[in-house]
């Protein structure tokens, strides 16, 4: 059984609690052990790196150190935004001068030598799509989805070093393994509006609206995401988007771990499907042999 | 310390006519400025360079010796640089045994079109030699002992072309 450190990220405690829960459940179901980083703190997210790179790295450094103390090589996080901060910090602190500046902000000098990866990467590379497929007991036959990766899961490629940066396929392959029909979504890595939801809702309406429009054009039953911010923009704000654009989108937006959980027959209570804002029942009804409600 | 604002040191370069000498020309034509310490001796092929030339230069007080030829597989004479590589690699290993800092000798491959690369090679090697400083006077070692120690390399011992 593979073992990795696990960093849920702040949103996993609130807005995307269901992502955190379903991630844990899916990893357990496929034999991937997640060890929580003890007393982890916020990575600083976008606000920190837009203010200062040293501050941002310092906020990440504490977590990398804590993960390092667990004696693992990989630190997995479900959130691409956390991933970007942690990865940037880990890479940039290889530079001695930069590390010195970061250390000046920390209580103890940074020692962390862990490789931050997304849970998605760990699932695909350490567990493997075939292994996931092997464990699928309730395939999602009949469900047609579009996979949306968000802008920073794979970019820039030299930094993220995972999957194709223009047409990533990791989630597509997992969804196929889960038995879903996957439509090729051409805007897989287009930005949804990121963290401008609060200060500039108009931006999110336009950018996320474009994504919803493209998904609707493909005739999919649902969008599948791997990012708490993207999911929130597309799901929680779908009503706002409809109002702003005079549209009538009604596309449920799942976390890939929720659908994977269904296919792996994880108890529904762990998947938090009831926490989605756009009602997913119509989409789930498309599944030919629906999972029994527990 | 920058190489350009300190005292010039003595660096001898052995360059093959077809690639590296041409590369140095290309760098000149493009006006890629370089430290002035290096003096270039033109030979037809890096395979013409006898390790004894290098040892002689170092004994005579050169602070550094740089050899440059065509990239492997690009030799104008088909395989001269392969012979050169084997000989020079052997020489490198023997140099430290003679008391010469092997960092004072380097070999590299630069093609006739690689002016920028040549500039880089010269600049870096000159910087290295300036970091090492002037070569120490080797009066405590006898001249003959040097040649004795370097002889295996010069004779190409461990080198297939010498059987």
């Amino acid at each position, binding site marked *: 059984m593979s073992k990795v450190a696990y960093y849920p990220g702040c949103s996993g405690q609130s807005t995307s609690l269901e992502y955190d829960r379903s991630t844990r459940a899916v990893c357990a179901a496929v034999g991937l052990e997640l060890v929580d980083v003890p007393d982890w703190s916020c990575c600083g997210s976008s606000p920190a790196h837009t203010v200062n790179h040293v501050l941002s790295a310092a906020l990440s450094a504490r977590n990398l150190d804590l993960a390092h103390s667990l004696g693992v090589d990989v630190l997995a996080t479900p959130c691409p935004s956390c991933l970007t901060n942690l990865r940037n910090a880990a890479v940039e602190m290889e530079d001695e001068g930069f590390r010195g500046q970061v250390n000046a902000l920390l209580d103890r000098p940074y020692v962390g030598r862990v490789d931050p990866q997304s849970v998605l990467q760990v699932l695909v590379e350490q567990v493997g799509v075939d292994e996931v497929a092997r464990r699928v007991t309730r395939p999602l036959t009949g469900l047609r989805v579009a996979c949306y990766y968000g802008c920073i899961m794979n970019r820039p490629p030299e930094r993220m070093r995972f999957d194709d940066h*223009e*047409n990533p396929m990791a989630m597509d392959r997992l969804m196929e393994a889960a038995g879903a029909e996957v439509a*090729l979504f*051409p*805007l897989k890595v287009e930005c949804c509006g990121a963290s401008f939801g609060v200060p500039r809702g108009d931006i999110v309406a336009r950018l996320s609206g474009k994504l919803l429009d493209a998904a609707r*054009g493909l005739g999919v039953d649902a969008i599948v995401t791997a990012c708490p911010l993207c999911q929130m923009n597309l799901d929680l704000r779908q009503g706002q988007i409809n109002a702003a654009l005079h549209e009538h989108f009604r596309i449920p937006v799942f976390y890939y771990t929720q659908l994977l959980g269904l296919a792996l027959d994880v108890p529904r209570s762990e998947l938090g499907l009831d926490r989605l804002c756009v009602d997913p029942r119509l989409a789930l009804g498309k599944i030919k042999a629906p999972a029994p409600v527990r | 310390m920058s190489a*350009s604002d300190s005292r*010039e040191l*003595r660096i*001898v370069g052995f360059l093959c*006519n*077809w*690639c590296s000498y*041409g590369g*140095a*020309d290309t760098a*000149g*034509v493009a*006006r890629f*400025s*370089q430290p*002035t310490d290096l*003096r*270039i*001796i033109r*030979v*037809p*092929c890096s*395979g*013409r360079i*006898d390790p*004894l*030339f290098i040892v*002689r*230069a170092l*004994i*005579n*007080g*050169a602070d550094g010796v740089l050899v440059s030829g*065509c990239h492997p*597989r*690009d030799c*104008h*004479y*088909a*395989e*001269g640089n392969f*012979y050169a590589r084997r000989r020079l690699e052997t020489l490198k290993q023997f140099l430290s045994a003679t008391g010469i800092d092997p960092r004072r000798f380097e070999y590299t491959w630069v*093609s*006739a*079109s690689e002016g920028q690369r040549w*500039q880089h090679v010269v600049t870096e090697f000159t910087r290295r030699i300036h970091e090492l400083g002037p070569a120490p006077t080797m*009066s405590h070692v*006898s*001249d*003959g002992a040097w040649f004795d120690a370097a002889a295996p390399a010069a*004779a190409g011992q461990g080198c297939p*072309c*010498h*059987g």
Partner: protein
Amino acid sequence: MRIGVFICHCGSNIAGTVDVVAVAQAAAKFPEVAYATDTMYACSEPGQEAIVQAVKEHQLDGVVVASCTPRMHEPTFRRTVERAGINRYFFEMANIREHVSWIGKNAERNTVKAIELVRMAVEKLRRNRPLIPKRFDVVKRVLVIGGGVAGIQAALDCADGGQEVVLVEREQSIGGKMAKLDKTFPTIDCSSCVLGPKMVDVGQHPKITLHTLAEIESVSGYVGNFQVTIRKKARFVDWSKCTGCGLCMEKCPSRKAPDPFNEGLCTAPSINIPFPQAIPKKAAINPDTCIMKQKGKCGLCAKICPVKCIDFDQQDELVTVDVGAIVVATGYDLFDWHKYPQYGQGRYPDVITSLQYERLLSASGPTGGHIKRPSDGKEPKTVVFIQCVGSRDRSVDRPYCSGFCCMYTAKQAILTKDHIPDSQSYVFYMDIRSPGKGYDEFTRRAMEEYGAQYVRGRVSMIYPKGDQLVVRGADTLAGTQVEVAADLVVLAVGAEAARGAVTLGEKLRVVPDQYGFFVESHPKLKPVETNTAGVFLAGACQGPKDIPASVGQGSAAAAKVLALLSKDQLESDPQVSRVTPARCVGCGKCVQTCPFGAIKLVEDRFGNPKAEVVETVCQGCGICTVTCPQGAIQLEHFTDNQILAEVNALCPPRIRVNYAS
């Protein structure tokens, strides 16, 4: 010896940062220097004349010129001293321009360095020997590698000049890229109408031997005497019988493989003649797709062939020819645009290359000259052209400009309007490069007369929407992002070195640059020569070129070949290895190491084995000199003593402590 030293100002090129007068004064004090002076332009007519005069006046028997690189003017000055009555190898050059004045700004240091380089040259010259070249016969035949338009031109010019030509082409027919084009810029001439007759001439010329489906296996020898082995690949058809009737093509049941001549836009039968104007017009079987070759049954073509020329057992054939000169005209290949994932990497069938578009435009192409898009055969009304795909882009390691894409894109935009009058073309470009005669007027016509909308900016991504493709780019002149929904997207893919160029270069000892294009001998003055005597370049193998430039180079290379082959004999370079028999112990190590087989063991009159150099075969690399444990074989003009003299000039020997011990 009485040595004369001439320090060249080269205008201000050298004199600007080297005190040439001081260098001359210093040189005058060197051993055996009888005369030293500075001169404005040593290579000019008066400059050379001054050297000749000085030789006579001061009874000089050796000359040093300190000026530019010997790779440039060593032959010039050797002729000068010869005119003055000195053996041309009593001449040395000190490179105080490329290696001194052009790379260092400190005049004082430059001057010292120049003095030392002159000192080195003097010390070497003191140990020079007179050398007399040998003469050898020239094989009056030329090999042309590559049957594109450059190779065709070179072959025809050489043949018309009276020389025998062997033309080797990798593909089944000659014609190269040009044969695939519909029209040519800036005249909109029909490409095959211009090229076709030349191809026929090649096929019919009594002096030209054509080998297609053939590649160079090996090359040995030297200028005037190359031995070349050509691998003629098995074509499974006896071409001495095949009439090119094409019956076999019609009946072949295997026709699923993409047609390479049509750039994969359609399929081709396994036995095929690539296009109607093919030269030679003979059928060949693709063994990878032929059912008979793969599964051992079928043989329909053999049954139907009226002249019974199918031979499933045919093997590759090796042909050896002796030639005196070689013209390399291997052309270019297209950049693999799949390196741009943002353009779909092949996921969208209506994103095609410019060469595929040529085939769609061509009347002999898969659509009979009607523009139909690959996905559904519909006629596109909105066509977007994207330039610089694989050109001027460091991120894909193609920082160079491919040169001709701007022009062919303008041509394709014009032809699009001709074919589909109610169409609209958009051209995304970074800069328009149209410096040829009539070229800029041509691109202006595309915009002004044909209404092509030129947009200055790169395209960031292409994505499908409905049955169209959304092209998202920038218009940097308007300062913003632009989008256009296109029916068809044409990528102006750049040129890169032909596949296999590097391997061929190794065989020919022609060096490729870092992108695989062959390096010419001098970028200005020797554009078709290479550093290997007798091997010449023509066309895009040296760098991206359009048709007129390729044709021009084909003729230029032919002129060089004709000049070379006009001589019955050539002089061999006397800078070769020489054995001192008294020191040679006959160990044979030099024989083993010589890459050219130029050394053989002979017996002296006492029956002892001794090495002997075949002077016309020796290339003068000097590997043997280093190998010889006895110092018995020395490379003339680069002897151990000469090189050590240079070393000693730079690093004067120190007091020798205990040397005797």
